[in-house]
């Protein structure tokens, strides 16, 4: 099962190495790991997506919490969360295919961010499933390059039906 784990860590050199080293040393698999600043300059947030059974993920959570500069660890499993990925994707887009591609982009609420002679760069954000679906939809046109951020997430405060 997929778990999104959010860790507040001290914004110090070496923290990422501590966390990444722990994952490698304990043979935990990570789908993605995203680090970014927070509202507090002394803290960063790491969002880590791990796949494993409950026992494994429980160990991941405890081992993370044990790392000295890790301040707080939350496993969002079972909680309503907003989880988002961002992707930049370059597609081959010859002039005759462009209308088709643009309508696809429209359907996914994606944006064209760069236009070349033979290709387009598109920015898509949303849940991982949407990103995957967009990639699948683009395959017939020819994907040149993909860059993805990995998942960031936050728990919802309001009713879980509200979709953004």
């Amino acid at each position, binding site marked *: 099962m997929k778990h999104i784990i959010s860790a507040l*860590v001290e914004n110090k*050199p070496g923290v990422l190495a501590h966390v990444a080293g722990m994952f490698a040393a304990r043979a935990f698999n990570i789908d993605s790991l995203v680090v970014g600043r927070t509202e507090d300059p002394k803290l960063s947030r790491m969002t880590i997506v791990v796949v494993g059974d409950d026992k494994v993920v429980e*160990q991941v959570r405890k081992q993370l919490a044990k790392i*000295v*500069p890790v301040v707080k660890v939350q496993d969002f499993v079972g909680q309503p969360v907003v989880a988002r990925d961002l992707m930049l994707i370059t597609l081959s887009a010859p002039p005759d295919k462009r209308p088709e591609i643009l309508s696809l982009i429209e359907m996914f609420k994606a944006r064209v961010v760069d236009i070349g002679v033979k290709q387009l760069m598109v920015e898509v954000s949303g849940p991982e499933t949407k990103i995957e679906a967009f990639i699948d939809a683009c395959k017939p046109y020819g994907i040149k390059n993909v860059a993805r951020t990995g998942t960031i997430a936050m728990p919802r405060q309001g009713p879980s039906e509200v979709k953004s």
Partner: protein
Amino acid sequence: MTIKFIRKGVKMSPKSRSSAVSADKSNLKAGAQIIVDTLIDLGVDTMFGYCGGVILPLFDRLYDAPIRVIVPRHEQGGCHMADGYARASGKVGVVVATSGPGACNLTTGLATALMDSVPVVAITGQVRTELIGNDAFQEADTTGITRPVTKYNSIVKDIKDLARVIKEAFYIASTSRPGPVLVDIPVDIQVAKYEADGPVEMDLPGYRIQTKGHARQISAAAAAINKSEKPVLYVGGGVIIANASEELRKLAQKAHLPVTMTLLGLGSFEQSRPESLDMLGMHGSAYANYAVQECDLLIAIGARFDDRVTGKVKTFAPNAKIIHIDIDPTSISKNVNVDIPVVGDAKYIMTELVKEVEYRERAEWFKKIAEWKKKFPFSYDRNASTVKPQYVIEELCRQTNGEAIITTGVGQNQMWTAQFYKFGRPRQFISSGGLGTMGYGLPAAIGAQIARPDATVIDIDGDHSFNMTMTELATAVEHKLPIKVCILNNGYMGLPRQWQELFYGKRYSCSRLQNPNYEDVAKALGAVGETIDKKADVPKAIKQMLAEKRPCVFDFRVEQEENVWPMVPAGKSLNEMDGLDILESMA
């Protein structure tokens, strides 16, 4: 613990610093002096260190500081000495090394201390800040190399952090589940000047210590104990670290519980007491292993269900409900699923438990255990004409009244020591359990003797373990330490040889080397050396050794192909022990 941690205090603000600097320049201190003053503040009076280019500023300040510096012959030895010092005293052991090769040589010692939760602080020199990353002379990525073998490490890149980081290192090393902490200090930081007066506040927002166990969990544990017909207490090094032997004795007595110990737990519970089942695990006692496999309740305290203890995990303690008391939440349900976890300090939790448990006779259970004890005691051929290694240990135990501090090498020597020396006090048995580091015994004995100058300290070693760090004999001679090395010299890497005998058709591949004459080695290094090859000479040799005031090496030429019994072969359940027939026939 003599260390004082100032948690609250005046923070040094840059503003007050600059005004102080302009008002009175004499308040300026070099980084190296800040290190020394901080160490003294923290109660350090002894440390182990080896110099080199980028740590010279610190050694210069140590030249006339009120700190005794013991120089090992190799940094690994220095780290094991700090470790042995810490295990024998309960204080933090401090080791210093230079950058690059010096720091690299610490790694085995740090990993040893990490596995066995020993409070060690390592201070390493590093190349100048502006050279870091340039492959400078003697540069190594010390924090990168040592990250997996320390509880925490960091590099100081700003002199204003220096005192704080060192205090934090001591605090982290010695609290919760202890472990080694390394602080890497570039040479320019040691030389730079800073006004560093006043108390220093620690800043560790991510470091939490859970001392008190959850009251409801403690009550649940007590209720399970009170209900149990066939309980077993399984205790590890955590009880010794928590200084909770007294509480353990009370718990075992009040609730009437049999107690088995891990290798590192030896000394936490008097082995002469009737409740003692001695050590469990791969080379543990048959009665401990049978009791664990048959018990209906296993109460683990400060132990971590290591694979050398559990054997095949799937069939470990198959009928038991499991209580696990440990300060490290990651140890709980890591290898074995636990029914009643209690996270917290063993001393606190046992104190609470004692209040709630009730005495129960459990006559049948104790009778069964007594039968196993009678049938399968640790034993060997006492009528043999050769020098049996077990006999040497029994004789050592007898002549020291079981009261010496014992360190060991790794291998058969270590297992026989665990089986045949009967320990009564915590911090008496000092051995590399988790990592199994050959070469640990001699430097650890040196550290222990420095921590406990009046104690009898004996390193019961293997010939090949001794080979690894025997150069430290020179350190013992220099400091006139009356340590006693007893080499159980079987001419083999005995434990690998035993495995080769049992599982590789007696093909003794690379497990026998040509050894030096240890008596000559000892004498050449300025120690006392003796060779004992007759059984009849053992008692008087040991008597002579115990009377020696100088370091000595007694080379006992023991039976070469003796095996350690019982043995749970790899992948087998604890009750599937080999060698029981041998034990039974010699009982």
